[in-house]
């Protein structure tokens, strides 16, 4: 009884499933005898809840179809049901590996509508927190890449560093992951007195063991090179065409970084260079991330040296009612360009909030470059894009 129901159900959805049940040696339109592998929502290497329906000929991927929505938490509908400051905790849960950047994007969008002047100290603290968050996101993403290639140890070292950063975040904002630290117009509270030294110490220690734990352990490894060089190679036109942004785009050589090209917040007073690579494959993505970690350390040091004095909250009235109109915020999150478009109708509640999530757009790469790769390469390419399911499913 169950079987017939499933067959009927799949007949409705797509014809091939039923034909396969009756004739197992079915050939698809390319004349290949393929099996459908359902790399389902619960899978150790799917960076969250993504279901890839891979049509495999042996181990080579012939066609790939992504099914999303397994973590669709209706962020945009709920945002239309909250007052302006109350949406900030929701943005934390968007891309839960880059919480600070999400808050920053939303706050920039709303401040774009209000004509509020953000004190320089608040801007500097925001940049400091965002760069620490970038460290806490790039390190585990290299760790996940190695975990998916089969090495279990680098992820432990990555999370050891992330724990230390989370201790700093806890001291500053009070929470380990969901900070709700930024406010519209500034920052909730000033840095505690001992935090700058602690951050300086930590950044020094990270710089020391970054070479030992991450670069030496991974970069020279022949198996890592064999598994990642030339895998998921894409040309610059293809990457820009698909709208890929962030490390996945920079690894093909296009040097586009929102912090430099569309400067926001305190980034103009900080020098850093945009890391690009020419490979366009998974190994280039790894190198770009390691380079960006070094750049973030450089930025954190500069911010700590030039931390301006002053209060941390602009003069914003307790009840935020931006005038009718639209606000735009664009931020360079560790995965790419995170943009927020807020439409207000003059009331206390945003009329419409639209998040442009980098993981959602970068994932279109899967359908373009996967055919022709082996199944283990699919997992490596997921490591190149490093999407987060809270982001793409909104």
């Amino acid at each position: 009884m169950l079987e017939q129901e499933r067959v009927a159900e799949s007949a409705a959805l797509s014809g091939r499933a039923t034909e396969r049940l009756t004739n197992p040696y079915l050939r698809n339109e390319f004349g290949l005898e393929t099996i459908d592998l359902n790399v389902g929502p619960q899978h150790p290497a799917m960076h969250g809840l993504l279901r890839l329906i891979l049509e495999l000929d042996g181990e080579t991927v012939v066609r790939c179809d992504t099914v999303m929505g397994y973590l669709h938490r209706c962020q945009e509908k709920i945002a239309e049901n909250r007052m302006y400051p109350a949406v900030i905790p929701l943005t934390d849960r968007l891309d839960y590996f880059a919480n600070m950047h999400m808050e920053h994007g939303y706050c920039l969008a709303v401040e774009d509508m209000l004509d509020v002047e953000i004190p320089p100290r608040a801007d500097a603290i925001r940049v400091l927190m965002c760069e620490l968050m970038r460290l806490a996101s790039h390190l585990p993403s290299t760790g996940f890449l190695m975990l998916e290639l089969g090495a279990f140890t680098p992820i432990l070292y990555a999370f050891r560093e992330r724990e230390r950063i989370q201790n700093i975040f806890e001291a500053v904002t009070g929470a380990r992951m969901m900070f709700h630290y930024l406010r519209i117009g500034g920052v909730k509270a000033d840095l505690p007195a001992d935090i700058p030294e602690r951050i300086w110490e930590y950044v020094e220690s990270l710089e020391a063991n970054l070479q030992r734990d991450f670069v030496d352990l991974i970069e020279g490894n022949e198996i890592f090179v064999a598994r990642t060089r030339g895998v998921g190679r894409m040309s610059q036109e293809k990457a820009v065409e698909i709208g890929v942004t962030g490390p996945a785009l920079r690894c093909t050589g296009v040097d586009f970084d929102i912090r430099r090209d569309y400067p926001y917040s305190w980034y103009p007073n900080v020098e850093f260079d945009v890391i690009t690579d020419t490979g366009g494959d998974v190994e280039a993505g790894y190198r770009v991330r390691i380079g960006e970690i070094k750049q973030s350390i450089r930025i954190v040091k500069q911010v700590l040296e030039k931390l301006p004095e002053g209060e941390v909250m602009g003069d914003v009235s307790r009840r935020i009612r931006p005038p009718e109109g639209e606000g735009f915020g664009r931020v360079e999150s560790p995965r790419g360009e995170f943009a927020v478009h807020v439409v207000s109708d003059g009331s206390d509640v945003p009329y419409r909030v639209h998040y442009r999530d980098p993981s959602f757009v970068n994932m279109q790469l899967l359908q373009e470059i996967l055919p022709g790769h082996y199944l283990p390469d699919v997992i490596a390419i997921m490591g190149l894009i490093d999407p987060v399911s809270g982001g793409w499913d909104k």
Partner: protein
Amino acid sequence: MGTVIEYLNQEPWRFLVSFAAVLFLTLNLAAILTMSERKVAAYIQGRYGPNRVGPRGLLQPLADVFKLFTKENLSPSRADRWVFLAAPIAMFIPAAAIWLVVPFAPGAVVADLNIALLFFISITSIGALGVIMAGYGSRSNFALLGALRGAGQLISYEVPLILSMLGVAVLAGSLSLVDIVAAQDGGFWNWYFLPQFPMLIAFYVAGIAEIKRIPFDLPEGESEIVGGFMVEYSGMTWALIQASEFALMGLISAIGATLFFGGWQPPFEFLDFGNFNWIWFGLKAALIMFSFLWIRWTLPRLRMDQLMDFGWKILVPLTIFWLFITAGAVLAFPSVFG
């Protein structure tokens, strides 16, 4: 007491008692190795392993085994039931049977076959059959992929395994492990890992591939095909497959110690303990086992085509080339190589 041992020494009883002892050894070795794997992994990764169960965590394998005893044995509805249930047995046979020919101490070997190496090779190929049965039996795409990868890998890595052992057989002039160990007496400079160093490397790498451990972890690709051929197994059937995998690991290190590091031969004359020489055998096998554990937690996994290229294009030519050199050396200087 003496008469009982006399009585037990006769043929039918001697074999049964020793086979029971070997089975007991295999299961315990598997349990100990699961525990040591988790502890070694933990210390490599900078954390404590299981240390809440019993004194410093030593009862952890006991807890795991008892829990797996009482787990429900599920088998998928569309699975081919008999093949599904026969697969763990087929994978456990090589791990248990080959201990019969391994010499633990002088005179302490269950069956002194004069074709011990041939016996070892033929039995390990049953393991490859077990993997295919497991993958086919559980009727899921992931298991099918794991089984096909396993078949390709295990069969194609038996060739370098065999060739790397032939070098030792040529030197020792016999296939029996007891003779091979006897031929390596004297100090460690007589052991065969010196003249047969490339063969040792080939044996070691093919051994890792034979026991399906990282970097040749493809049949059970943890992060790609979720559990490979083991994806549908639960409870005791899964425990039997895990036990066979760890026992085979212990076995490969035991055979490696016997062939290349002189079995129970002490490294120096004065360290000879007479009948207690099994300490040396245990120490050498343990060192090789530790190196397997060490490699598992540091290296990533190879891809299927790289695995095949490495096996056929590098290991097989290396072993054949070194086999000719050994044979030439034995013919050219019969006195030196005896």
